[in-house]
């Protein structure tokens, strides 16, 4: 199967007066599993649909395997798309649904049949070939939709929130299956989701979108550890953000918070910006003060099983702190005066 | 006098409350609003204590309606053109025999007796059938108006003629029957079928014919005179003429049996026969022939006067009894042979006309023989006159169970199917012969 890369350059798109995409640039490598992550309204689905050829024609260029497809009709692009609603046609059987694209390509019927069977086998549902879509469960419909798309051997596979209509346990199973299939076929795949866990677990790289603009592109770890801006920091995982300023003394630098507390920064930390991002697991809570300590007061606590999550007022904001739990460990009552010890090695100043 | 005043005051009061029960006269009529309106207005002005309730129905539907409601009659007057419809009601014992004062009204109009001898119904106006045509249509198609019935059978009028079916229109029935009586049973039917071969359409209502001529849907129509006169009076580019063989027949009015307001009904009929009542007939929208000869003094220029012009409607002595005896048979035959098989008939007659035109040039005797054969097939009748007048045969078409053990030999559907097979086959053969003749 041919592997195609995708190159998106300066794509703008509006619905009437509303600008939905504002200058998107992106390159996806052949065979890559790539995720578009963002809140609803960020433009991630619009971008995906623009690649497939749906919705208003964008400005800029979208190249698939070197071919600019912006002006092409959806049916000439040879990209496969799996819809959030699956969009299985209720008046056709599973076999007819899966064979649809091949029939459109004028393939003789005797060639269609084995291909459909193979595609169904790939998703493990060969036995359901003669069923009607309304006789299938959600997960089965999802797989049929996938089989229907890959059977036509598209250059690119586009998945629009493919797991959002499944229940939690099925979702985990399906995303593994998706990944397995993608690796097996080596298809360049774009996966749109608003769920960071889905994006983190499946994608080689991902793009975080907000307000029609790509905020950051990278591997899931890069984006978590090195968020390019506050939006990315907040959107991926929980982030405690303290306002303040960086003060440098030679090769030493420290971050002074709005309340005047200071946190020393390790050499590797970039030292420009008025915010410091601290992940909850990089903060220790203690009754005693120490190095890089912020005094605070416990506002609220939640027992989560493996962890206890505290909400502490400190450094001029409310800070989330996760403490791993084991029996016999010290408890901090609501209202207790505590100190937060920040491990600034993993902190990011933005 | 005093009682009149009192009753008119009472009537006024009752009109205000919308009841007027005592003076209400319910009239079932086939006449259009444009005719009943002026007469109603004139009558109510002359007799303010009465209120006419007009219910417009086609003649046939009106008869049916009176039959349906006979068990608990609410109608006072039946008022329509066709004498045969009155004959049917009279035979069914649904009309009342009444005495009506009628000064100055002659016994006959043309050759037709005006009133039922036993007083079941009375003539109030005359009407005769004729040919109506659209000037623009004829000019555009380079035709001249037909003068006689037989002219309508000429090839040049093919597809230009319209007529109503006798089963749908009482007055049309009269025309059909008049020709059958005038020319004889077989010759009469032959003439009808040859004319019908030129039909554009057979309309479902009698008004469909003047309507078709008025709009120019077809060029010539076989209509009753007042449709022609009133269409012309309304401004349409149409004209009307009586052919020599026509029947002047009275339009009639009768009191329905067990009428809720028989006194009112008689008053209305008497009013129709007064000079004032007769004068209303000359209203441009009505244009019926008054039966009071004096009324013609006030008629417009050129309005025909049957009491002076002896050529109108004098030729045929119309036999009402004969007509009544085979009323349904004639209707059914016309429908089976013409109305329902118009396409076949038209095609056959058209083919013969084409063949005749070819023979006129070539003079081929063999072709002429084929054409004669073809005409004979068109002309052939499924039954003869004697059978049409046989009461047992007619009963098939009028069966209304009187007693549970009344037996009728054949069913109407059976007879009609026989006729249908007969004419369809004849028309098909005639067309074949004509095509053959044309190709010689």
């Amino acid at each position, binding site marked *: 199967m041919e592997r195609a890369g995708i190159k998106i350059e300066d794509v703008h798109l509006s619905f009437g007066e509303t600008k939905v995409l504002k200058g998107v640039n992106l390159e996806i490598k052949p065979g890559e599993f790539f995720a578009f992550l963002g809140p609803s309204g960020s433009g991630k689905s619009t971008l995906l649909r623009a690649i497939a050829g749906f919705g208003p024609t964008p400005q800029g260029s979208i190249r698939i395997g070197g071919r600019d497809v912006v002006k092409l009709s959806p049916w000439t692009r040879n990209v496969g798309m799996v819809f959030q609603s*699956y969009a299985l046609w209720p008046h056709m059987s599973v076999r007819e649904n899966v064979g649809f694209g091949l029939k459109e390509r004028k393939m003789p019927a005797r060639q269609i049949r084995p291909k459909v069977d193979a595609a169904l086998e790939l998703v493990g549902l060969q036995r359901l070939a003669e069923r009607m879509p309304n006789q299938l469960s959600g997960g089965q419909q999802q797989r049929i939709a996938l089989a229907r798309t890959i059977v036509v051997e598209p250059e690119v596979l586009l998945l629009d929130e493919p797991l959002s209509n499944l229940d939690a346990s099925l979702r985990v199973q399906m995303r593994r299956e998706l990944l397995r299939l993608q690796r097996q076929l080596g298809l360049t795949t774009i996966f749109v989701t608003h769920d960071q866990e889905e994006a983190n677990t499946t994608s080689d790289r991902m793009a975080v979108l907000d307000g029609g603009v790509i905020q950051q592109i990278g591997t899931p770890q890069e984006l978590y550890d090195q968020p390019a801006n506050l939006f990315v920091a907040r959107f991926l995982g929980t982030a405690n953000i303290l306002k303040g300023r960086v003060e440098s003394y030679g090769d030493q630098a420290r971050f002074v918070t709005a309340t005047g507390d200071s946190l020393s920064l390790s050499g590797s930390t970039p030292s420009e910006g008025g915010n410091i991002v601290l992940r909850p697991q990089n903060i220790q809570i203690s009754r005693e003060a120490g190095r890089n300590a912020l005094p605070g007061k416990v506002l609220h606590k939640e027992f989560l099983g493996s962890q206890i999550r505290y909400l502490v007022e400190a450094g001029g904001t409310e800070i989330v702190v996760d403490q791993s739990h084991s029996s016999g460990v010290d408890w901090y009552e609501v209202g207790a005066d505590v100190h937060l010890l920040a491990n600034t090695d993993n902190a990011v100043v933005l | 006098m005093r009682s009149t005043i009192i009753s008119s005051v009472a009537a006024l009061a009752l009109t205000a409350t919308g009841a007027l029960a005592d003076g209400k006269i319910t009239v079932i009529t086939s006449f259009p609003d444009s005719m009943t309106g002026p007469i109603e207005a004139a009558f109510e002005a002359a007799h303010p204590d009465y209120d006419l309730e007009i219910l417009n129905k086609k003649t046939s539907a009106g008869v049916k309606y009176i039959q349906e409601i006979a068990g608990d009659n*609410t109608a006072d007057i039946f008022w329509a053109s066709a004498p045969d419809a009155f004959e049917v009601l009279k035979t069914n014992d649904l009309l009342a025999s009444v005495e009506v004062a009628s000064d100055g009204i002659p016994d006959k109009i043309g050759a037709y007796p005006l009133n039922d001898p036993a007083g079941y119904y009375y003539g109030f106006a005359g009407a005769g059938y004729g040919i109506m045509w659209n000037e623009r249509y004829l000019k555009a198609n380079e035709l001249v108006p037909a003068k006689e019935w037989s002219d309508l059978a000429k090839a040049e009028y093919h597809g230009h003629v319209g007529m109503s079916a006798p089963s749908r229109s009482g007055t049309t029935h009269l025309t059909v029957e008049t020709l059958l009586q005038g020319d004889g049973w077989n010759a009469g039917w032959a003439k009808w079928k040859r004319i019908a071969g030129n039909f554009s359409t057979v309309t479902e209502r009698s008004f469909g014919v003047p309507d078709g001529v008025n709009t120019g849907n077809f060029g010539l129509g076989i209509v009753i005179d007042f449709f022609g006169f009133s269409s012309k009076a309304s*401004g349409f580019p149409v004209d009307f003429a009586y052919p020599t063989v026509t029947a002047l027949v009275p339009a009639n009015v009768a009191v329905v049996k067990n009428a809720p307001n028989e006194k009112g009904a008689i008053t209305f009929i008497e009013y129709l026969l007064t000079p004032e009542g007769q004068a209303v007939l000359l209203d441009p929208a009505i244009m019926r022939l008054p039966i009071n000869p004096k009324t013609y003094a006030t008629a417009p220029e050129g309005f025909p006067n049957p009491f002076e012009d002896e050529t109108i409607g004098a030729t045929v002595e119309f036999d009402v009894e004969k007509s009544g005896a085979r009323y349904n048979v004639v209707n059914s035959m016309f*429908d089976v042979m013409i109305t329902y098989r118009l396409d076949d008939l038209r095609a056959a007659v058209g083919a013969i006309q084409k063949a005749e035109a070819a023979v006129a040039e070539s003079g081929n005797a063999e072709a002429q023989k084929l054409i004669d054969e073809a005409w004979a097939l068109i002309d052939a009748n499924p039954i003869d006159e004697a059978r049409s007048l046989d009461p047992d045969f007619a009963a098939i078409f009028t069966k*209304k169970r009187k007693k549970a053990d009344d037996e009728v030999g054949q069913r*109407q559907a059976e007879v009609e*199917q026989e006729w249908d097979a007969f004419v369809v086959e004849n028309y098909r053969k005639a067309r074949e012969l004509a095509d053959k003749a044309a190709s010689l």
Partner: protein
Amino acid sequence: MSYSSPPPAKRQAGLADRLPGWLVPHLSGLHIAALLIALLLVGLLLVPVAQVMIVAFQDPATGAATLQNFVDFFRTSLFRESFWNSFYVSAMSVVVATAIALPLAYITTRFTFSGSILIQSLGFIPLIMPPFVGAVAMQLIFGRNGTVNLLLRDWFGIGIPFMEGLNGVILVQSIHYFPFILINLSASLRNIDRSMEEAAQNLGSHGIRLFRRVVFPLAMPGYIAGAALVFIKVFDDLGTPLLLNVNNMLAPQAFLRISSIGISDPMGYVISVILVVFSILSLWTSFLFMRGKEYATVQKGGGGMARRELKPIEKAMAYGVVVLILLLVLSPHIGLLLLSFGTIWSYAPLPDGYTLANYVTMWENSKTYILNTVLYAGVAATLDVIIGTAIAYIVIRTRIFGRQGLDYLATAALAVPGVVLGIGYLRTFHSIDVPLVDKPLASWWVIIALALMVRRLPYALRACTAALQQVSLALEEAAESLGATKRRTIQKIVVPLMTGGILAGFVTSFATAAVELSATIMLVSSNNDAPLSYGIYLFMQTPSGRGAGAALGIVAVVVVAIGTIASQIIIERDKKLRASGEQR
């Protein structure tokens, strides 16, 4: 209709003895309502129709029960031909109506197209003109010597037989009844999720193929519903073939035979039976076909309805098609308008001159007709929505024994030709005197309103059922859990939420009842009781009255059209309100 009617209640108890025990203690207000409606429908529909149908099974000579009449029917070639003609005309009308409705429905629902609401409303207008009036106007425009053919002959020397024989019936019927397909098909098309089409495009399908393989099959249930209605209506319709002088069809044959002088030949009744049976059969077939095909295609997470943008060239073409079709379907109205303002219109493309005189004549003579129409159609439509709502509620929300029967019975009115109902009423109600008025029930004006009510009940019932299906059961349960009784819940929650649908039902019933002729022509017992369509009919029976009749027709169309468009706007607004409510 009073609630203190012990005999039915007693009979119910008697029946209940033989029914499962759970039924008896539940004899609630709803049960009583169901029973009353059932009695009403039996009295106003079943009994009168049976009165007519029974004649078909009697030996005309002896009155004994027989099937001979049916044997005669099928032996008579004229009847076989009529049957075939009726079938052919109905089927072709469906085809032509589809050709008219499909582009309108597709363009207005699937593309951003300004004027969609207007087009949808205009598309409804042909339905509110009495078909016989349409036939008159169509003759003037498309007839042998109508405007189009006169012009064609002048310019090119050719004529097109639009209105000859069966063609004319097909054309007039298609133009009159295509809105049934338009309305149902549009609703179905609106419900097709965008992703259904996009998935197909994504797999390489587009254009006609996309429409044929995906869009149309998905819209099939709506299409079949509309097409079945058109088929039945055309099959039963009497006025149009009669006016066009086409006799070789079943309905005219029945009418001609039943209403002719002296012919008490049972064939007319046999044809009535065949009309009714065939109509019920068609309805039933369409139900069978639609079973299990009610695709709820607007899906969770779907894109909802997609309106695509058209390219300028496509847009121009689309407007061209729409304008052409609208010109065609509104041609009866255009013809009628010209006729109403014209002086003399004879063998000419247009009237000779223009005048307002027709409107003056009309206004002087027809106030009664207009008032009567508003009264009758108003009474009928009001009763229709009340009964329709009740039946819809009973069928959807209760488990009352025989509730489906109620639905079928009300719907069966669709299959009863107006003439048959009219004759049945005359036969059934003539011997019943109305107290105080001192008239037989058959000639009391109320009977006309009741006939109209029965005839239009199926329309109102469909609208009410659809509206109720959109009211979530949870909303009712919420009210009941807060202590509202069933009655209060229906009053305060269900009916207000159904307003849009009820209104739509009212308008459809009112508009179509206002122009009904076939049943009323049999039942009008005095010109003072005549409704508008009958008034037009009377006007049109005289040479001088054609213009005035046309003017009255225009008044009818304008009045009903304003009502329709207004309600359409209200319904759209209601829909938007609902849609925005759902999003939050």
